[in-house]
């Protein structure tokens, strides 16, 4: 159906959605003031870079440990409550990192209940005792690691499940223990999926502003906003954002180089792995281990939110509440479907054509996620408004009517900005799924006279169902939580749950924010549950 040229053209068209804002960033940054660079590098830049690197390192350690560890436990063993833990491990996905940060601060800060209790119980005053400061770099690592590990868990889990038992049979023949088999066979084969999950977690870490700003941890991203808001230099801020992007590009290249040689496929029919039953103390330990991430990333912050909600005697905004839910859920659904469709097209174009253009398109699309939302929003707004104004000028000149702003200021513009950021999420998950399907499958189907389109529909989509649903889920939940682009690009009188939660939280009215936050989490729970069920059906 689609020839090579058409694949290339369509993937380039999709990439241009991301490329246009990037070009806009370049244009904006061309007016940057070089003296400001000197000031930054001689004062604060080294600290920004150091903190960002440490943050990434810490978040990697936590997301890998929690994500891979829990995925390994739930796929390789059977223990009490496993069916619950299997999806409950995804719950932190519904928790925006900055909300978790507010909750932990409320709980652990010097004025919070725990330290107050310690002071009352032991007659201490502040300074007499040591307590880990939550608003610190390590606090940020903990909070972000505990809400971001599900990216790694989700992708690692489906990679572990889709691995054939044959690999493990070979491991058994070679006399490997389960743990050895994991380290030497399962993990290396699952590596593309684990890395895809980790890159998503790290890109979100780099783009985060809310958590680090609240904790007073100065990172590269807080530096971007300090330069923009504080020094009134949007062009220098754009330049810093481009530097951040450059850094991400380097990371992506290193990652790709490092696994170029390693390609693993299992051509035989995959069979369900046989998990080992854990009983007694071992079973309890397993339960404890998988409970830990759920408690840290979900139960504890939600508990704190519930306490606030009760204390505040706040009422649910009866009339507005359902409107907010409707707005949020419909935006998230539309964007999720679009992002997955476009992501699949790009991932598949690379697979069918292997042309440099399609590879380039794929790399461009995977960049959007690393740019802070406000920056992406402004950079998307600029070309869209330019287009609108050109159209308007043409109509005014030739037909004497004004078309006004057709795209900017509408939900269409907002959805485009979401796509710029979140297509990367869909692509990451789809790409990991596609890579585990051997190219010989395509060749076999093609040799039987199927067009690439038919191969996609008849061979890949059925085999990819797990990855497709994973991608849908991730984008959906990301849009639910999305704040900065929504704030700046939404039409008049349009609110989402995240906007409401943020408005109260940023005004330090945490009790009022708690209700909206709980609503995001509840509304986020439904797709998490539905989609994980569906994912299970298709991956088991």
């Amino acid at each position: 159906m689609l020839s090579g040229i058409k694949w290339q053209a369509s993937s380039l068209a999709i990439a241009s959605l991301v490329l246009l804002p990037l070009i806009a960033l370049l244009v904006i940054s061309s007016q940057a003031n070089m003296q400001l660079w000197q000031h930054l590098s001689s004062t604060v830049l080294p600290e920004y870079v150091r903190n960002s690197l440490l943050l990434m390192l810490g978040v990697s350690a936590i997301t890998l440990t929690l994500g891979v560890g829990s995925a390994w436990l739930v796929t390789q063993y059977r223990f009490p409550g496993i069916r619950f833990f299997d999806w409950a491990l995804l719950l932190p996905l519904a928790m925006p990192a900055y909300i978790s940060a507010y909750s932990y601060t409320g709980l652990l800060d010097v004025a919070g209940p725990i330290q107050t209790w310690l002071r009352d119980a032991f007659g201490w005053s502040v300074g007499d005792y040591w307590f880990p400061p939550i608003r610190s770099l390590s606090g940020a690592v903990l909070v972000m690691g505990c809400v971001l590990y599900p990216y790694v868990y989700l992708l690692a889990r489906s990679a572990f499940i889709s691995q054939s038992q044959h690999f493990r049979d070979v491991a058994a023949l070679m006399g490997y223990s389960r743990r050895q088999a994991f380290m030497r066979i399962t993990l290396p084969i699952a590596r593309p999926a684990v890395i895809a999950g980790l890159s998503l977690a790290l890109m979100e870490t780099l783009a985060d502003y809310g958590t680090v700003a609240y904790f007073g941890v100065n990172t590269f991203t807080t530096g971007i906003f300090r330069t923009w808001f504080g020094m009134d230099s949007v062009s220098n801020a754009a330049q810093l954002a481009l530097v951040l992007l450059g850094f991400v590009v380097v990371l992506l290249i290193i990652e790709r180089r490092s696994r170029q040689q390693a390609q693993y496929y299992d051509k035989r029919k995959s069979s369900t792995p046989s998990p080992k039953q854990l009983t007694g103390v071992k079973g309890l330990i397993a339960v404890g281990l998988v409970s830990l991430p759920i408690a840290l990333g979900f139960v504890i912050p939600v508990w704190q939110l519930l306490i606030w909600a009760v204390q505040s005697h706040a009422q649910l905004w009866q009339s507005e509440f359902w409107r907010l839910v409707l707005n949020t859920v419909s935006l998230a659904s539309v964007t999720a479907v679009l992002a997955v469709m476009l992501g699949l097209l790009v991932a598949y174009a690379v697979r069918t054509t292997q042309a440099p253009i399609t590879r380039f398109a794929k790399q461009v699309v995977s960049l959007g996620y690393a740019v802070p939302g406000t920056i992406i929003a402004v950079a998307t707004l600029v070309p869209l408004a330019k287009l609108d104004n050109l159209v308007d000028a043409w109509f005014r000149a030739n037909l004497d009517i004004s078309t006004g702003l057709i795209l900017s200021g509408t939900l269409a513009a907002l959805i485009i900005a979401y796509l710029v950021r979140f297509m990367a999420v869909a692509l990451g998950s789809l790409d990991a799924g596609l890579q585990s399907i051997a190219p010989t499958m395509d060749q076999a189907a093609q040799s039987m006279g199927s067009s690439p389109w038919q191969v996609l529909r008849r061979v890949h989509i059925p085999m990819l169902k797990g990855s497709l649903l994973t991608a849908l889920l991730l984008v959906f939940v990301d849009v639910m939580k999305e704040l900065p682009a929504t704030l700046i690009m939404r039409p008049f009188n349009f609110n989402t749950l995240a906007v409401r939660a943020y408005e109260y939280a940023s005004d330090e009215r945490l009790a009022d924010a708690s209700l909206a936050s709980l609503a995001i989490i509840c509304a986020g729970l439904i797709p998490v549950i539905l989609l994980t069920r569906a994912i299970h059906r298709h991956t088991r």
Partner: protein
Amino acid sequence: MKKFVLIALTGLLVSCSSPTPEVNLYSARKEALIKPLLDAFTKETGIKVNIISASADALLERIKSEGINSPADVLLTTDAGRLHRAKQASLFAPIDSEVLNNNIPANYRDGDNTWFGLSLRARPIMVTAKAPDIALTSYEDLTTPELAGQICIRSSGNIYNQSLVASMLAHASAAEVETWAKGLVANLAREPQGGDRDQIRAAAAGQCSVVVANTYYLANMLADIATDDDRAAGEAISVIWPNQQNRGTHVNVSGAGLIKSAPNSDNAIKLIEYLSGDEAQHLYANVNFEYPVKPGVPVHPILAKWGEFKADALPLEKLGENNAEAVKLMDRAGWK
């Protein structure tokens, strides 16, 4: 085909121009804090207010990129610095209004009538009973060695701290202010973190005894809607009005300006005039515990308890002019 598109577009345009009078507001002020005033305005005038709220700088970029077709009529910000920025970017059109000139004292509005302060926010010093027994009467006193390890203040990334330092730059040399900032950093009880309320909470818990914060945060903690813990923290704090013997306590305004390309400029002027009037000024005082700009409008009883104070009479555009220099200075002083 082309004809069809044209007809469709014209239809769209016609359907867009609604008969009800309206005004489009880009607001850096949180919707919850401004909504009661807007509702009161709609009730009185029948003009519907459409609102988008986001950060002031992002809204400025949005207006700039939307260009002559921008639907924005009024930009509302929470500090004078951003109003100045919008003026510098030539986004505002001047308003020649008797009402505004009568309601708003000259130092709280722009000399060229492009923007108008609508509510006052003071940033005094606050102390607990544990504060060292020294004469603490000015911002300058915050650097005395007796206060070592006693001060809590939020990050220098916050606009209110930037405005405070910008105001000091208008009264003293850059070198003097930088020495002051270094002295302040040396006296901090902890790395700057959290918001203004968090500083008050930390002081009440005993981590520090001297705080610099905006008054409405403290008032909100003392109000009926506050949680019990917050009220207890707020009650442990007393307010010191700094620099009463010289320039006065640092104040900032929240304010508004009319966008040059405003499609509903008449309604926009009505809105800004309304916000400067008695009813709205009274609401500003009651919804978020700010000081009214209009002389003679009573302040909220919680604020009245802290007594009257002399405010710094500095023309507020100075805050905008000095902001970038203030940020660089704080970078050099190591104020995180």
